[in-house]
């Protein structure tokens, strides 16, 4: 009885809430995760050719970087609303908006990574008869990986947080629970969903950090890599 009371007295922390709504919480978390993963993966697939295009010279770099920066400036609430006529109230709307946001960080980081590849490494590979494709996949990409992963981590953490705004169209994962709890001032639900959201971001960041260590074993010998934070 004492435990059920916390729902009645509207406590911040409520064990009974966790028990009785565990299914709801799990569903919201799953939606949150798949929206984030889909957005970041699509963002990566779109950002990669854009970064390669931007690398071709100033004529391409200017428009590509300018456009992604403008997209990043548009507030999330406006971005989702502007996409409404195209997608209606759907998860595709939220994913599209999040993809557009992730592009700025991903394109910049991939570009920075590719441009930091030492000229000697490229020349050596060319001298060994590597074509442009093989040069990219076997030399440039692995060397650009730390910068790419740093960008991926920033993009993922931001996307986890931004997904909550998707509750505007009813597809915001844990944000939906926050939105639903607002009219009744349901404290336990707002706090639980918020904490889960932050935990999700931290877990995603650590997971990507682990992946980065796994993919770039050579950076470990030179001491722990200092993750360069995006200033913009």
């Amino acid at each position, binding site marked *: 009885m004492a435990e059920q009371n916390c729902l009645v007295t509207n406590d*911040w922390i409520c064990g009974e809430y966790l028990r009785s709504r565990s299914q709801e919480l799990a569903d919201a978390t799953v939606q949150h995760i798949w929206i984030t993963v889909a957005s970041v993966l699509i963002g990566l697939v779109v950002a990669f050719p854009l970064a390669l295009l931007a690398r071709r010279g100033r004529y391409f770099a200017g428009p590509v970087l300018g456009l992604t920066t*403008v997209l*990043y*400036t*548009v*507030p*999330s*609430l*406006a*971005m*989702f*609303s*502007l996409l*409404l*006529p195209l997608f209606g109230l759907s998860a595709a709307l939220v994913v599209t908006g999040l993809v557009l946001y992730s592009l700025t960080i991903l394109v910049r980081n991939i570009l920075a990574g590719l441009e930091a590849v030492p000229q000697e490494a490229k020349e050596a590979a060319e001298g060994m008869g590597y074509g442009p494709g093989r040069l990219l996949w076997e030399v440039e990409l692995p060397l650009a990986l730390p910068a790419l992963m740093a960008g991926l981590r*920033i993009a993922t*953490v*931001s996307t*986890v*947080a*931004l*997904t*909550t*705004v998707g*509750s*505007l169209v009813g597809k*915001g994962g844990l*944000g939906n629970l*926050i*939105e639903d*709890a*607002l009219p009744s*001032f349901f*404290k336990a639900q*707002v*706090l639980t*969903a*918020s904490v889960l*959201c*932050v935990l999700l*971001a*931290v877990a995603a*960041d650590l997971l990507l950090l682990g992946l980065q260590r796994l993919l770039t074993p050579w950076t470990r010998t030179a001491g722990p890599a200092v993750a360069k*934070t995006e*200033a*913009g």
Partner: protein
Amino acid sequence: MGVVEDAWTWLTTGANWSGDGGAAHRLGEHLYVSGVALAVACAIALPLALYLGHIGRGGALAVNISNVGRAIPVFAVLALFMMTPLRNSGYLPTIIALVLFAVPPLLTNAYVGMREVDRSVLEAARGMGMSGGQVFVRVELPLAYPMIMTGLRSAAVQVVATASIAAMVGLGGLGRIITAGFNTYDTAQVFAGAVLVALLALVVEGVLVALDRLLSPLRRRAVRTP
């Protein structure tokens, strides 16, 4: 597309701009909370970052605070504020939330700007007999200026974006046009509100870029010594 025309009609209808919940009032609210929050955030973050950068301490704090800021959803913070008595204090919850999200970019960028000043330049300045204060004002501050302005720009963009999300928890600002449109299934109004919010963010960014160029200490020097 019909929606675009309908949104244009919405924007050019005078009645939508006037009155208590009109676009003009919402724009005023938005600019007011954004301006106050940005000023407060600058007053908190800049002295701290410049001091820490000058003495060369607190690097971990400056970097980590921006990572933490990214991981916390704006919507969650605003919703949490609405669960407390803060919800009855007018614009205060919005302003506090805006300050919280404006401090990290300001702090991190100003700190990094101070730390990235070339060590040999600092040594030369000290060798010329400059005091700590003189080094700060004449050497470190002008050289850190571009990064400080970058931080100010991202903070301003962040503040304008966060202020629009305040509407999702029922607080004032331009975002209310959008949420009101959602509540009445008025896609034209949603689109019109979104255009206004996006334009405001782009204008703020543009103004700050212009201000950056105008105030740059290096530019002034270049003009003075032709």
